[in-house]
C-alpha cells in the first residue's frame, strides 16, 4: 500500500498509546493547518449549530448566500411548536453591497422579516466579509430592536476570526443577553437547565422525561426545542447540566459567575453515562432522597427493558473494532464505553475540538495501541482505519463516504441524524444501527476482504 505520511505540523496532534513509548503531549486548541483538509468548519458554523434549534427566533445570516444556503434546515433539531429555525434567511450580499456596505440591506431585511414572521427575537450572524467591510451590526441591531420591540442580537461569527469554538462562545454570548430578562416566578428549587442538548431526533424530550420522572423541573433546554421565553428565565434554575461540553461550558461558567448557578458535565450516550447523568443531578439535591430514589427507579426500569435487547447485538459484535471521530471529545468518552458494552473495542479515537484535559482523559481510557487524533483529515483517518482494521467508523456526514469507500460500517453521530441516540432508548438505537451496518453482508464484496474488483 502507498505510504501515507502525517503532515509536518500535525505530528503533535496524533498519538498512539503505547506502554513505555514516547509520551507526547497532544497538541490541540490550535487552528487548522493551511492546506490540510480539516474536517472542522469555522466560527460561523459553531455559532450556527448552537443557536439553530431556537425555534421561535429569526436567524438571519448577514453575508453572501453560501453560508445561509449550506445551513438551511441542516440539522435534525426538532421543535414541538414553531419551526422558524428551519427556514433560511440571508442578506445575500452582492458586489455593490461589499463596496458600499450592507447596513441598509440588513436593516430592511430585518424590519421586513420581523414584520412577516413575528419572531420572539432575532439572531444576526456576521460572516467573513462583514468583518472586513466594517458594517456596524451592533448599531443596526439596536435600532431594529428599538423599532420592533424584540431582542435583536448580533452574533459575531466571522468565519476566519478563530475556530469553531469561538463561534460557540459568540452564540453563548448572545444567549447571555437573553438570560436574566424573564421572570423566575414559580420555578421550583428542584430545577435544572439542560445545556448543550439540541433535540436532534427529539433527544431532549427523552432526557427531559427522565428528569421530570425524578421530580425535577426543567426550566430551559439550551437550545434544543428552544424558545426565547424559556431562555430568558434560565437563570431561575438551581443547576446547569451541561452536555456537549465543547459548546456550552462557557455559558455554564458565565451563568455560575453571574447568577451563582453551579454546573455539572454529563453525557446521555450509553447506559453508564446516561445513568450517571441522572444520579449526578439527584446528588445535587441531597435534602431530597426521594429524588435519588426516583432516579434509581428510572434507571432500573429502563435498564431492565434495555439490557436483554442488547444481547443479540453484543453476541454478534464482540471482537469487532471501531474508530471514532466526532466533534466533541466528551462524546468520544461515552462512545468508548457504549461500544465496550456491546463487545466492541476502539482502535482510533479523536475529535475536532477536544482540549488538553480531554485528551489526557482519553489516553487514560483507551486500550493499548489506540490511536488518538485531534483535528484529523480524511487521509489520516483512512490510514489508521486500514492499519488498525476497523470494522466501524462513527462520525458525521463528511466521514461517512470514507467508511463506505473502504468497505466498513458507519454510524452517523452528528447533527443530521434522524434517530435518537441519547438516553436508554438511544442506546438501543445505537446498538441496532451499529449492528445493522457492521454485520451487513454487503461488505463481503469490499476489496479489503481481498475480493477482486
Amino acid at each position: 500500500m502507498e505510504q501515507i505520511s502525517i503532515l509536518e505540523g500535525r505530528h503533535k496532534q496524533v498519538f498512539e498509546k503505547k506502554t513505555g513509548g514516547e509520551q507526547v503531549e497532544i497538541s490541540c486548541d490550535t487552528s487548522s493547518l493551511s492546506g490540510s483538509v480539516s474536517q472542522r468548519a469555522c466560527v460561523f458554523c459553531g455559532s450556527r449549530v448552537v443557536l439553530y434549534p431556537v425555534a421561535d427566533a429569526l436567524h438571519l445570516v448577514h453575508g453572501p448566500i453560501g453560508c445561509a444556503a449550506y445551513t438551511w434546515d441542516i440539522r435534525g433539531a426538532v421543535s414541538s411548536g414553531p419551526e422558524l429555525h428551519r427556514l433560511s434567511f440571508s442578506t445575500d450580499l452582492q458586489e455593490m453591497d461589499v463596496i458600499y456596505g450592507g447596513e441598509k440591506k440588513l436593516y430592511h431585511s430585518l424590519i421586513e422579516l420581523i414584520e412577516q414572521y413575528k419572531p420572539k427575537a432575532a439572531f444576526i450572524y456576521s460572516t467573513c466579509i462583514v468583518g472586513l467591510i466594517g458594517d456596524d451590526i451592533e448599531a443596526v441591531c439596536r435600532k431594529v430592536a428599538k423599532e420592533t420591540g424584540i431582542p435583536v442580537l448580533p452574533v459575531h461569527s466571522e468565519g476566519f476570526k478563530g475556530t469553531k469554538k469561538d463561534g460557540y462562545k459568540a452564540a453563548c454570548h448572545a444567549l447571555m443577553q437573553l438570560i436574566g430578562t424573564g421572570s423566575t416566578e414559580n420555578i421550583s428549587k428542584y430545577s435544572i437547565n439542560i445545556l448543550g442538548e439540541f433535540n436532534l431526533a427529539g433527544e431532549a424530550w427523552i432526557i427531559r422525561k427522565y428528569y421530570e420522572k425524578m421530580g425535577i423541573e426543567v426550566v430551559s433546554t439550551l437550545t434544543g426545542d428552544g424558545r426565547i421565553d424559556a431562555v430568558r428565565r434560565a437563570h431561575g434554575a438551581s443547576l446547569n447540566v451541561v452536555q456537549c461540553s465543547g459548546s456550552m461550558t462557557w455559558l455554564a461558567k458565565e451563568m455560575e459567575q453571574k447568577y451563582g448557578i453551579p454546573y455539572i458535565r454529563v453525557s446521555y450516550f450509553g447506559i453508564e453515562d446516561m445513568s450517571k447523568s441522572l444520579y449526578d443531578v439527584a446528588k445535587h439535591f441531597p435534602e431530597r432522597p426521594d429524588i435519588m430514589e426516583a432516579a434509581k427507579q428510572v434507571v432500573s426500569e429502563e435498564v431492565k427493558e434495555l439490557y436483554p435487547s442488547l444481547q443479540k447485538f453484543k453476541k454478534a459484535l464482540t471482537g469487532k473494532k471501531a474508530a471514532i471521530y466526532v466533534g466533541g471529545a466528551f462524546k468520544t468518552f461515552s462512545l468508548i464505553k457504549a461500544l465496550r458494552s456491546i463487545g466492541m473495542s476502539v482502535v482510533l479515537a479523536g475529535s475536532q475540538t477536544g482540549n488538553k484535559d480531554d485528551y489526557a482523559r482519553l489516553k487514560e481510557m483507551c486500550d493499548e495501541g489506540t490511536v488518538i487524533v485531534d483535528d484529523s483529515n480524511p487521509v489520516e483517518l483512512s490510514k489508521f482505519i486500514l492499519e488498525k482494521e476497523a470494522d466501524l467508523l462513527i462520525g458525521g456526514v463528511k466521514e461517512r463516504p470514507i467508511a463506505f469507500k473502504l468497505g466498513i460500517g458507519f454510524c452517523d453521530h452528528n447533527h443530521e441524524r434522524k434517530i435518537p441516540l441519547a438516553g436508554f432508548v438511544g442506546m438501543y438505537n445505537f446498538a441496532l444501527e451499529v449492528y445493522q451496518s457492521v454485520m451487513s453482508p454487503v461488505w463481503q464484496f469490499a476489496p479489503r476482504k481481498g475480493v477482486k474488483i
Partner: protein
Amino acid sequence: MKHAKTATQNACKLCNPLGACLAFRGIENCVPFLHGSQGCATYIRRYLISHYKEPIDIASSNFHEETAVFGGSHNLKIGLKNVSKQYKPEVIGIATTCLSETIGDDVPMIIREYQAEFKNGSPMPIMIHASTPSYMGSHIDGFHAAVRATVKTLAEKGAREKLINIFPNMVSPADIRYLKEILEDFKVPYMLLPDYSQTMDGGPWGEYHRIPPGGTPASAIAMAGSAVASIEFGSTLEASKSAAGYLEEAFGVPRYHMALPIGIKESDKFFTLLEALTEQERPEKYDDERRRLIDAYADGHKYVFEQKVIIYGEEDLVVGMTAFLTEIGITPILCASGGKSGLLRKSIMELIPGMDELGIKVREGVDFVDIEDEAKLLKPDFLIGNSKGYTMSRKNNIPLIRLGFPIHDRFGGQRMHHLGYRGTQELFDRIVNTVIEQRQNASSIGYTYM
C-alpha cells in the same frame, strides 16, 4: 398578504466556489483548493457529499485574523506546499472566496511567487486559478469560471487534429458517462471537460486514494486548442464566460453552442451536429433509443397533456427541461431560477417562440419563497427541480419530481440521466409515473391497471 422582500429566503442557488470545486473534481489528479476560511471548504464538501455520496477532499488556506489583515499570500503558499506534499496532485484548482476577493489578494501573482520560490523542489503541480467571489453570481458561474480557467491555463496551440471538445455544463456523472459513450460510438477523439463521472460516482477502494481515479487528464486538456470544434451546452452561457468561447477567441476553435440536449428536438440537434462534425451517421443504437422514446411518448401522451408544472434550478437546466416539457404537451407555467444571467427568457424564446401564448412565465433571481408564492397562485400539477423544493412541495401538497442538483433526500441522484434520448426516456417515465401514482392514490377504487 404580499410582503416587501429584501432578504433572500430559502435560496434557490448556492455560492460561486461550490461550482468551481465540482468542476475541478473533473480533472484527473486534481485537488480543489479554496482560498478562504475553513468553513467554506467544509460546508461545500458536506453539501456535495450529501448528493454524490463520495469522499470529497477540498483543501483550504484556512484564513485567520492576521491573514485577513496582512493578506492571504503566506497562508496560500503554505497551503499549496502542504497539499502538494500530502496529495501529490498533478493539478491544484484554486478558487477564491468572498473573503480573499474582498481583501484583494492577487492570486495569480502569489502563484507565480510560489512557483519561483519552490521550483527546485519535487515536480510542481499545475496551478489553475478561478476567480469565484461568493457575492457575485451563483454556483453555476463558479463552475463555468473553473472550466474556463482550466482551459486557459492548459490548452495549447497546435495543428488541427480530428478532435472534438465537449463542455457538457453541470450535469450528472451518469450524463457524462452517456456523452462519453456516444462520442466513443462515433469513434471520434474527444476532450470532455469536466469529467467527474468516476470521481463523483466511483467504485469501492481497496486502499485509500488521496485523489480518486478518473477525470480529464491535463495532457488531454492541453490538446483542446487544436480541436476542430467545441460543443458547449448551456443556452445562457455566454462566450465571454465560457471555455469554448476562450478556445474560439484564442485558437480559432469554432464554438457550437446549444441548449442542454433534453427532449427529442434538442437531442436531434446534438446528434445532427455530431454527424456533421464527424461526417458520419449516428450509430444505429441511437436511432433505436430515439424510436423507443417516440413510442413511449405515444404510449404516455394522455397522462401528461396539458399538465402544468413549475420548473426551477440552474437556468440552463430550466431551458433544456422547458424544451422537453413543451414537446410532450406539458406547460411550464413558471420557469424559475436563482441565477440571474438576464438571458433566461431570451433563451427559452429561442427554442419556443410561442412561449407567451403557451402561458410560460419566466423569473430570474428568485428564491423558494418567491416560487412558493407563485405556486399558490398558479396551482401547478407538479414541481420539477432539485430536492430543495421539497419543503414547498410538502406544505402545498404538490408532487415534486426531483432532478438536477442537489438531491439530498433521495438515493441515486448522481446516477440519474437527463441528457439525450436515454436521459429523456428516464425523465419521461418518471413524469408519467408521477401522474399515474397521483391518480391511483386519489382514486377511491384502487385500480390495479392504470
